[in-house]
């Protein structure tokens, strides 16, 4: 039993404690030390996560590198970890993004001016910020690795707290008291929405345990439960299964977020720092969609099938709705948020289309959306930090003064509208095809999303970057080395995974097929299959 997974979770956790414990103080050197430590820890985590992904044998068992420690015997709860392809990939994504986020928000947590009554706003500000980020990373990674329903639930819930403090405690300082009010409103909204979801899920978790216990499965071990469900040893009555499914799904749908439970996201992403916003949309929210794949489908196959059409419709609404609202936004970050809502619609649609293309697409989508939105949002953050305003109207002609910034931003926009050659295209097309093969009508309507995506992405670019140079933009400096160091890898990855996603698909496909077989689903067969000439017969 290798301790690789637990190590991967433990390193950031320990790092969080360490960072928090570092000596406080507003002196530059102290702060730099803190940041260095945090960054180092996240780097180590990245290495570990990469090792995990590398050690994972796609065609081996469903869950690998498994570990299990007794935790709360009374409730059959164990601290057991294990990865499948999906979990490995997503954990890796998290580990990749966190260092970027840290670099990007290097100065976001430097202590600001003294407060009204001379008190410095919390001299541990910097320590707190980076410690919280690491805490989030640790919790997210645990929930990607957890193979115990309860363990997952615990961290799924617990990660709200650090996120909550990140959102509420560290916004762009430009705003003043008003924006502070907005920010805490956003933080509370975030927490309450997700807490409600979590509590409903808690009821479902308890229900699951009780039902399973009555049938002699007093455990939360996912593989056990899933297989028991699969081969009918664990019989859930129709209504019970539906209720439990909804309980789980509700929580995930709030987190994901799925229309119409999305309204917390724009506030949260709008008010938080760009880094935090990325953390929310690119990392934390992925736990929700990931959980749909692993838990909803794994534990409640029949209910999943029953509700799939309804969920697809919601997802579809989300795609169009999010895109349309993105078009209508005046605030850059809120625009990105609504774009994400639209994208989450795609992800959820891919999951519940119950086809291998759909689900592989959805999984890739989680990764690609993470990368591309990170790039987009972070550059937007750099832009905003330069001008001190989130309003699109305050910008114009940036490409003239800061071409590199504009260029990277354009690439981000193109990735968002999923241009072929960039990673998001691969996943989006897979999702569309996967949906289409089972629900043609829904697939077609969803395709409208690509037009709307082009609309909001390019509108934003046009309004901010092109045209005559606005006052307040004239003296805008171009990207600094640090900022380039953040964006360049993301862009590179986006391009690479757009042209050669095979490594990912190889990791993901087997797990997806396993998931599908849990739901007793197979891809719909083509009407008139032809010999696919993949591999290209040479002449």
């Amino acid at each position, binding site marked *: 039993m290798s301790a690789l997974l637990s190590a991967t979770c433990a390193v950031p956790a320990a790092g969080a404690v360490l960072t928090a414990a570092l000596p406080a103080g507003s002196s530059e050197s102290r702060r730099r030390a803190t940041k260095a430590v945090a960054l180092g820890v996240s780097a180590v985590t990245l290495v570990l996560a990469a090792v995990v992904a590398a050690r994972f044998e796609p065609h081996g068992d469903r869950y690998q590198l498994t570990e299990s420690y007794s935790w709360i015997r009374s409730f059959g709860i164990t601290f057991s970890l294990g990865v499948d392809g999906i979990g490995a990939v997503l954990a890796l994504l998290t580990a990749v993004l966190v260092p970027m986020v840290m670099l990007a928000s290097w100065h976001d947590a430097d202590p600001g001016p003294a407060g009204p009554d001379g008190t410095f706003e919390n001299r541990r500000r910097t320590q707190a910020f980076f410690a919280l980020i690491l805490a989030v990373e640790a919790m997210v990674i645990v929930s990607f690795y957890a193979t115990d329903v309860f363990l997952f639930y615990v961290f799924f819930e617990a990660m709200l707290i650090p996120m909550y403090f990140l959102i509420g405690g560290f916004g762009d300082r430009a705003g003043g008291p008003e924006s502070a009010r907005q920010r805490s409103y956003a933080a509370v909204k975030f927490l309450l929405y997700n807490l409600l979801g979590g509590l409903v899920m808690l009821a479902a978790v308890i229900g699951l345990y009780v039902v399973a216990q009555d049938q002699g499965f007093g455990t939360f071990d996912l593989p056990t439960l899933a297989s028991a469900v699969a081969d009918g040893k664990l019989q859930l009555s129709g209504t019970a299964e539906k209720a439990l499914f909804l309980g789980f799904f509700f929580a995930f749908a709030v987190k994901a977020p799925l229309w119409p439970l999305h309204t917390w996201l724009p506030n949260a992403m709008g008010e938080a720092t760009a880094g935090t916003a990325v953390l929310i949309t690119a990392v934390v929210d992925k736990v929700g969609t990931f959980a749909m794949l692993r838990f909803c489908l794994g534990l409640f196959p029949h209910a999943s099938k029953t509700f799939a059409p309804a969920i697809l419709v919601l997802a579809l609404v989300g795609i169009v709705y999010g895109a*349309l609202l993105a078009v209508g936004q005046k605030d850059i970050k809120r625009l990105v948020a609504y774009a994400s809502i639209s994208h989450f619609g795609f992800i959820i649609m891919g999951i519940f289309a119950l086809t291998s293309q759909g689900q592989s697409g959805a999984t890739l989508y989680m990764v690609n959306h993470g990368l591309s939105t990170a790039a987009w949002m972070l550059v937007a953050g750099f832009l905003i930090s330069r001008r001190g305003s989130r309003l699109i109207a305050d910008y114009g002609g940036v490409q003239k003064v800061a071409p590199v910034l504009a260029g990277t931003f354009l690439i981000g926009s193109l990735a968002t509208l999923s241009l072929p050659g960039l990673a998001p295209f691969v996943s989006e097309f*897979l999702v569309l095809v996967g949906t289409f093969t089972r629900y043609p009508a829904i697939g077609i309507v969803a395709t409208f999303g690509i037009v709307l995506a082009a609309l909001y992405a390019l509108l934003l670019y046009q309004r901010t970057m092109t045209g005559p140079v606005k006052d307040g933009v004239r003296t805008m400096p171009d990207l600094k080395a640090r900022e380039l160091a953040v964006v360049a890898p993301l862009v590179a990855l986006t391009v690479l995974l757009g042209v050669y996603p095979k490594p990912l698909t190889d990791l993901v496909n087997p797990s997806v097929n396993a998931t599908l077989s849990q739901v007793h689903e197979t891809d719909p067969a083509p009407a008139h299959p032809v010999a696919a000439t993949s591999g*290209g017969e040479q002449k």
Partner: protein
Amino acid sequence: MNSLIPLLVAAPLAGAALLLLGGRALDRFGHWLATALAALSFGFGLALFSDLLGRDAEHRTVTKHLFSWIPVNGFQADFTFRLDQLSMTFVLLITGVGTLIHLYSVGYMAHDERRRRFFAYLNLFLAAMLLLVVADNYLLLYFGWEGVGLASYLLIGFWQHKPSAATAAKKAFIVNRVGDMGLSIAIMLMFAEFGSFAFGPILGSEGAAGGAHQASEGKLTAIGLMLLLAACGKSAQVPLQSWLGDAMEGPTPVSALIHAATMVTAGVYLITRSSAIFDLAPDAQTAVVVVGAVTLLFGAIVGCAKDDIKKALAGSTMSQIGYMVLAAGLGPIGYAFAIMHLVTHGFFKAGLFLGAGSVMHGMNDEVNMRHYGGLRKYMPVTFVTFGLGYLAIIGFPGLSGFFSKDKIIEAAFAKGGTEGWILGLCALVGAAVTAFYMTRVMVLTFFGEKRWQPDEEGNAPHPHESPKTMTVPMVLLAFGSVFAGGLFAFNDSFLKWLEPVTGHEEGNSPLAPLTVTLLTTACMLAGVALAYLVYGRSPVPVVPPVGSPLTRAARRDLLQDDFNHAVLVRPGSALTATLVYFDSRGLDGFVNGLAATIGGLSGRLRRVQNGFVRSYALSMFGGTLVLVATTLLMRSV
């Protein structure tokens, strides 16, 4: 030899990457590098061409598998290239004309500080277009397809500081996106139907029938229509034509590239490439010819009314592409001629645009033809080359346009039945109108009195001939526009070349070929004469006359934008506004309302806690009574 195919794409792509990432260092010679790489790609093209010619006609399809792109169970998208006669033709056209345009741009963009980036985009454009035509499956084609869209976006909006340019670029991309939607739906349909979207299996290759034959006609029609939608987007066919005119915001070489070598030809390529599907779906074909015919006239009419030389040429492009689409819609009788016209058109339209560019170059970027006049004295080379291009496009006997267009009109009649008559007449009328507006352009620009005045700053333009880098390409293209047609037509060499891919049938034309030719020529001459009467004899007013309603409408591109605005834009923005309101008031309002309700409830319940010990006691007492009562009740029930 196959391994050269990827290099076709790789060369310009590498150029683009180098120039974009290379930074200032490359400013000095970047443009030459780009041109060289384009030329290199052309060289590869020639090499491959000779290789193909070396093979016997039946085995001229070569594929090259690079790597598996998106493999998910049944869904297998590969990076596989395919070169056959059709794609070969395009490769040569794209790289050849493309190289010339690069060369031209060296001079044209000499004074633009962002020249390096411009050339990077040009290379990107070539790379994307090449990928489009050498792809072996529809998804890879889609890759190139959108790449073209991107490159056009970048180039049309190259002068981003001009809001109009930025808008035009965005418009082009988004309108194209609508088309792309069609393409992706088509691909999904194919995957759902055949479990594949590679050319070989579906369309069949080298005589072997593809899966298309098994599919139901309904499915094929659907696929065909979706492909047509895609084609409309890229080739600026009605109803997705609106972007083309605005695309003139880009630098002139870009217009040349878009209109002659790349972009707009993609639609025709797609339809011809998918011939196997269209042949089995007559309804789809009808749709295609209708679109072609309508656009043909639409573009021609618009071309007549424009005073902006580039816009006038844009209108002509639209209508010429209309010819090609029409031909492609005619099925096996038309495909070859569609492509043939496409190639010839590539030559003369490029020439015309470069000529126009050269004129603008000499006229301080003045585009209004009413401010030109009598330029033939000032820029002879431009005049000659432009003139040859003009003769070619109006189909003057002996020049390229003549052969290709004539064939198309013939084929249109050959469609047979009333349909054939209608199409044929449309084509004829189109020929006449083409002659009219092109003559108009010619006359307004090069003949008559000089009408240019000083601009706001008071510095009058000093018309002068353009530098060698610009004139040489024009000359070369002029040769093309003169001889290409004849070359192709010479004992149907071009037809034979393409036949293995597109197949060919002789239609049964109600009119003898000669009759058609005569009719065509007559129409052409009529058009020329009319134009001369209107513009050649009397001096041209600098301020355009009000003109007939039709003219006014045509000046506004036959109200296409007004239409889109009324039907799409305004309702759309209204919808978004409503949704934004709904999101904050509706959904959020509901949640906040819930919170408020709880708060209010709490506030009301608090009053019970009034601080009086006796009322507390009362609540206890009441509670006790209820408790006792209910307990007793539970027993009795």
